């Protein structure tokens, strides 16, 4: 399995990291707490913005202080947590009507308007939180 380290060389100020706890590795509730305890060892305060279960595992969206990102990322990856920064949605321009219903859902401005007010998507900024998916009234945003 490939562990993807985040934010290496990316000049975007993002303090939210998206991680996946794969079901294959985590069997019961105690395993989750082991992982959280491991992070807490580093004495970092962070907010869990999203805690969701999916077919692949548990998806966490963490709000981490900027300077602690590397530390927390290392702690997470050592504990078999997939830390993911890659974009995971795609916008269908034929369906999109440039309304902007998705914009306020995006925590990293990966969905944004260009100067002519048309919707654009930045693959680099997307953290794959998928909050935007069901916000699109045109079903123009799809998971990649």
């Amino acid at each position, binding site marked *: 399995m490939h562990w993807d380290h985040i934010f290496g060389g990316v000049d975007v100020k993002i303090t939210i990291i998206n991680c996946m706890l794969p079901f294959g590795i985590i069997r019961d509730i105690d395993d989750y707490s082991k992982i959280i305890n491991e992070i807490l060892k580093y004495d970092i305060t962070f907010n869990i913005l999203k805690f969701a279960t999916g077919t692949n595992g548990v998806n966490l969206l963490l709000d981490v202080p900027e300077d602690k990102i590397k530390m927390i990322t290392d702690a997470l990856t050592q504990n078999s947590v997939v830390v993911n920064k890659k974009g995971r949605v795609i916008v269908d321009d034929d369906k999109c009507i440039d309304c902007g*219903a998705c914009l306020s859902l995006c925590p990293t401005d990966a969905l944004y308007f260009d100067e002519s007010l048309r919707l654009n998507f930045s693959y680099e900024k997307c953290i794959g939180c998928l909050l935007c998916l069901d916000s699109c009234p*045109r079903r123009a945003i799809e998971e990649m």
Partner: protein
Amino acid sequence: MPKTYDEINQKIRNGDVVVVTAEEMIKIVEDSGVQVAAKEIDVVTTGTFGPMCSSGAFLNFGHSDPPIKLEHLWLNEVHAYHGNAAVDCYIGVTRSVDIKPYDYGGGNVIEDLVSRKSIRLRGTSYTTDCYPLEEIDTYFTIDDLNQAILCNPRNAYQKYVCAVNTTDKTLYTYMGKLLPNLGNAHYAGAGCLNPLCNDPDYETIGIGTRIFLGGGIGYVMGEGTQHDPKNGFGTLFLKGDLKQMKPEYLRGVNFEKYGSSMSVGVGLPIPILNENLARKTAVKDENIETDVVDYGVPRRNRPVLIKVNYKELKSGKIDINGKEVKVSSLSSLFYAKKIAKELKTWIEDGLFFLNPPAENLPTNTTYNPMKQVSELKFVKDLKKPAITCFDDCDIKVVAEKIIEENTNHIVIIDKENHLIGIVTSFDVTKAIARDKTHIRDIITKKVITASDNEPIEVAVRRMKMNNISALPIISDEKKCTGIISSEELM
């Protein structure tokens, strides 16, 4: 020196009419003043493009052979309204298909119609001597119809509120997906480009006003439903020939866990007949104020948190009591601008003329709430005392209470009456089957609750949505003050 409609139309014919968009007018008035602007500018064009639920189309299919009197009919599996003559119908944009309710609706049918796609018509009839056919299943395109008339009872809201959510759950509303704890905000409308913001006193907009509607020519039929000009929430009743319209400006939209609608493109020309109109059409986003409303309160009168203007809304971020909240629109500003520009081009090219209204619209009315004859009942009116146990008691005690009190729900509290959790008779059964002895092994700690001043229907829906049969009632201090359960409410 006031201008007349005839003078402006003569200029259109001559090809020397001066038309600007409502956005361009702001700078002209700023730079040259109202007097010069009133003299030099003939028409200001406006535009808006957003979801307008009170929209739909009247269609006439022509008669089948043998003839059918449609009783129920579906267009691409979307139920259309039939209460007119045999083969007339009204397809409303908010009706969704029965099987995939948030994927396709009446708005999509209209978009597909103007895209000249083939539409399936399925209909049934009770049959009469003059209309013997019982069922029809056929396909048609818009060109096969005798008439297709877009007829929208409420469009072009002067402005709309900005929606937020202060609860701890994501809400899916007609104002889109609202994240918990003021996680985001949604608004609608195009601000300074909104047609009614440019003629707020209805000097030029009235019955019969020719407009841009869905990429074709339409007309104002009158005031829209819920027309509320006194509070700055005016609306328009619009119609137009669907056959001339373009799919680009009529787009079916489907809001997750809410339903279907249609984004409608509307543009109105404002003739600059006098200086007053020049001044009014120079309205800026910062002059158009609206309320930020908490959609977390499921009542008719939702709490207003703060006031904002459209300049702040368009900036993408608003400050709500010290918290920076991302805000975005459900209406497309790109298309609003495009509509204002397209209408401008039509007028400049001599394809569109202006006309005075046949009648003026009401300017001093407001709209009223529904008259309800039954009294609104609240949780506090119907709650019962909760049967409680302390959190350190034995399961046997809980089981005895269930029998004694003939109930299914035991509310677990601490010594100060704070809610700790809930145990149901099923939980006790499970405990026996699995040899659990302590209450902490079977208690549900994340309890879904209600409060005294919620309407009973709101609490009942919460039970249904969570598939549970009782809600403990808690006070602001999280103390248990009672319970409502589905058994008593039935």
